[in-house]
């Protein structure tokens, strides 16, 4: 990753204009040509430096529901339980964390009711308690990382 990649990442975290040729506009700001920007962007995605590029949708504003859910999984069962949790298409993210509460995942569904259904299902299949931590107040969501 070189200086231009860093500039591209910084610039594109802030956002791309919603215009007919957005890459050309950003390329001009960065002083490169459009093809170069698109090629670099593709490479950053291929190399997993970027996990995603595109519109960031807010499921809640669409009328959907999100929750953060945690489980305390015994070490020996961890991979098996993680696999069960990952098998739900409603599970968007899943992280292992260094703690007694060692499995943390985000459920995204269209209704609050569905979150409860998925949680009950997981609880039943794993035999483990599922702790639901829906957000009560959002104080800040930034997601920008300056390189």
């Amino acid at each position, binding site marked *: 990753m070189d200086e231009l990649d860093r500039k591209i990442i910084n610039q594109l975290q802030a956002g*791309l204009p919603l215009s007919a040729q957005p890459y050309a506009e950003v390329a001009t700001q960065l002083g490169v040509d459009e093809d170069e920007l698109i090629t670099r962007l593709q490479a950053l995605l291929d190399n997993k430096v970027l996990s*995603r590029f595109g519109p960031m949708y807010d499921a809640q504003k669409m009328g959907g529901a999100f929750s953060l859910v945690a489980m305390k999984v015994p070490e020996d069962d961890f991979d098996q339980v993680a696999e069960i949790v990952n098998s739900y298409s409603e599970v*968007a*993210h899943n992280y292992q964390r*260094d703690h007694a509460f060692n499995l943390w995942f985000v459920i995204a569904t269209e209704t609050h009711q569905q979150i409860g259904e998925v949680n009950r299902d997981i609880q039943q299949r794993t035999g483990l308690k599922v702790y639901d931590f829906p957000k009560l107040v959002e104080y800040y969501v930034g997601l920008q990382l300056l390189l």
Partner: protein
Amino acid sequence: MSSMQKIKRPETADNTLLDDNDRKIIQATQAGLPLVSRPYDAIAQQTGMDTEEVMRRMRNMQSLGIIRRIAAVPNHYSLGFKANGMTVWDVRDDVIDELGPAVGALEFVSHCYQRPRSLPDWPYNLFAMVHAHTREEARSLVAIIEDLLGDANRACDVLYSTRILKKTGMRLLS
């Protein structure tokens, strides 16, 4: 992607803001914006609308906050941020709404939320994600939050992520 087809669309979806054409656009772009010179032409072709219509609808979704922005999401690990900690705090209820935004305003905090406690196992009600290169650096960031919260903080903990088990982002139903 198979996960897109699996989620069913409930009859009762309280979704008056979106119509079927909006949904088509969301489905066509939730994995990413096409990396071509005129990406909205590509989406238009895919969804059977014209480019102007696609852009008008996306601008509308942006103004409603349904699209937060059109942007790149970095992978913290690949970029050298190896110590990604979910810091959790037991903050007095009477002051959490004052302190939450102050914690969120710290430059190294990427997300900050109030969530319910789950007593007795889980006393924490304020969650703030911090990203650092090392755990040592992360600890110094946690100390800054601790100072800011002062007496209102009764207990805290830091949960570092050790493995990403899944990261697909949200998928909308068809």
